[in-house]
């Protein structure tokens, strides 16, 4: 086999070659704008809100001030229930930094009731085991106590099975 260019380094060899280190200071304060500001402020009140487009009739969640399908401004704010359906899920043995964890994080996409088809958000599942999550399962948001809410998606602790 012919030799292709490149000099591979093992982790040990990597430590021996000359090198520089850097930890950049890169900080942001993203403007949330019209739609996300309202969405976050409603979360603080324990409510989910979407935006309705009268042209295509969709209720968009999370809300946008514009409809990306019709390309026009959306028309009205619509409160939504805090219940939904499991679209997909995973049980993760990795945390955000790829560290191994023994108790899996249960996470998935929840299509919110009252929003248009497939309109959901990613969030955690709680008060159930990995085996108890199924496609199409009905779930409900578990909110933090009002005093602890800051206007963030983490004002919802997780979604739990909905008791009929």
């Amino acid at each position, binding site marked *: 086999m012919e030799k292709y*260019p*490149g000099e*591979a380094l093992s982790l040990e060899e990597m430590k021996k070659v000359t090198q520089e280190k850097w930890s950049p200071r890169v900080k942001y304060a993203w403007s949330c704008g019209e739609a996300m500001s309202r969405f976050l402020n409603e979360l603080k009140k324990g409510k989910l809100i979407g935006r309705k487009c009268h042209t295509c009739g969709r209720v*968009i969640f999370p809300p946008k001030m514009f409809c990306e399908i019709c390309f026009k401004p959306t028309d009205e704010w619509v409160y939504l229930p805090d219940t939904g359906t499991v679209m997909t899920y995973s*049980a993760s043995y990795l945390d955000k930094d790829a560290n191994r964890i023994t108790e899996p994080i249960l996470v998935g996409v929840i299509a919110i009731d009252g929003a248009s088809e497939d309109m959901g958000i990613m969030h955690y599942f709680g008060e159930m085991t990995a085996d108890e999550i199924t496609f199409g399962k009905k779930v409900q948001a578990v909110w933090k106590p009002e005093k602890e809410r800051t206007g963030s*998606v983490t004002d919802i602790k997780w979604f739990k099975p909905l008791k009929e």
Partner: protein
Amino acid sequence: MEHVACVGAGMTIFSRRLKETGKEMCYEAVRMALEEAELELKDIDTVVCGTAPDAFDGIHMKGENLLDGCGGSKKTYMRVFTGGGTGVLAPIAGWWHVASGLSDVCLVVCEEKMSSCFPHPQSAFAHIWDPILERPLNPNLVWIFAMEMNRYMHVHNIKKEDIALVSVKNKKNALDHPSAQLAANITVDDVLNSEVMAWPVQRLDISPPSDGAAAMIFAREDVVHSITDNPVWVEGVGWCIDSTMWTNRDLYFPQYVAKAAKMAYRMAGIHNPFKDIDVAEPYDPFDYKELHHMEGLLLCKKGEAANLTKEGVTQRDGDLPTCPSGGLLGVGNPIAATMGVKACEIYWQLAGKAGKRQVPDARTGVCQAWGDLMQYGSVMVMRS
């Protein structure tokens, strides 16, 4: 529209860590491509760079930093970037530089140096998520793929052992690739018994992060014949982006890939992709993605790709050899530089230069890349 051909390609080895700087990797890939085409840098008038997040290499505006290694110094130089889709989008951009009549000979260089992000490129992946809706949940990149894979398996009732066959095939194909990082003879059981990362994704379902670079040279029809007797023509290109909101659609089918494929097939005059295409390089950062993308590329009906794999159709000696290079699963996944195992591989296959990886009688090939938040498809059809 000018007719455009690829006349040379090159790539470095793919490795977890390379000693070379990004620039040096680019240079090495370019030199190999120039040698293959028997051209010199002065014959190149335009350079396109494809490289994915700056957060891997750890250099802001890294396209600017890489440009002398890409051969772009004092030249017309452009960087394009569509996440993981860059690996095929960059050669497409090379195509439009030439097809527009602006360039006679265009060099396309793709690079990724993921090892700079230390100890693991995962810290860069943490910033691909929506800062307001998703980053507060401390997500890991693997999560979205796990959720997509699970949805795909659920909708079509596909078993993990059938998906694992892709990993087995590609790692084996990679044994014949000089650049391979994770070539191996493994079994379906090895995949099923490997560590669970985020169910249903296990360690051997995933391609590794890599350092690497790749290069291709495109030329206009009237100069092609003075360069080579063995050109490979770009016959169709397509690219497409879906909504940012990946939580607002059913993940079981990559509609954006299908749209990009239709665009490319229309241009190439392909009506029956399965019949008309002799070799395919769909993007395979995960084993299920090869199947997902075969369906997106309309090479089979929705949900059928696993069966084709089981029947051996996608083996090098099958009816539709798929990822004969060994793909990302076997050779490595230096995001944009995967051009080396996608577009370059199709070029080498169609030019009859793929060595031990050569599939017989390949005249038409398709390659595809996929990126962003599971929303980008780029597709290129080539013919010898």
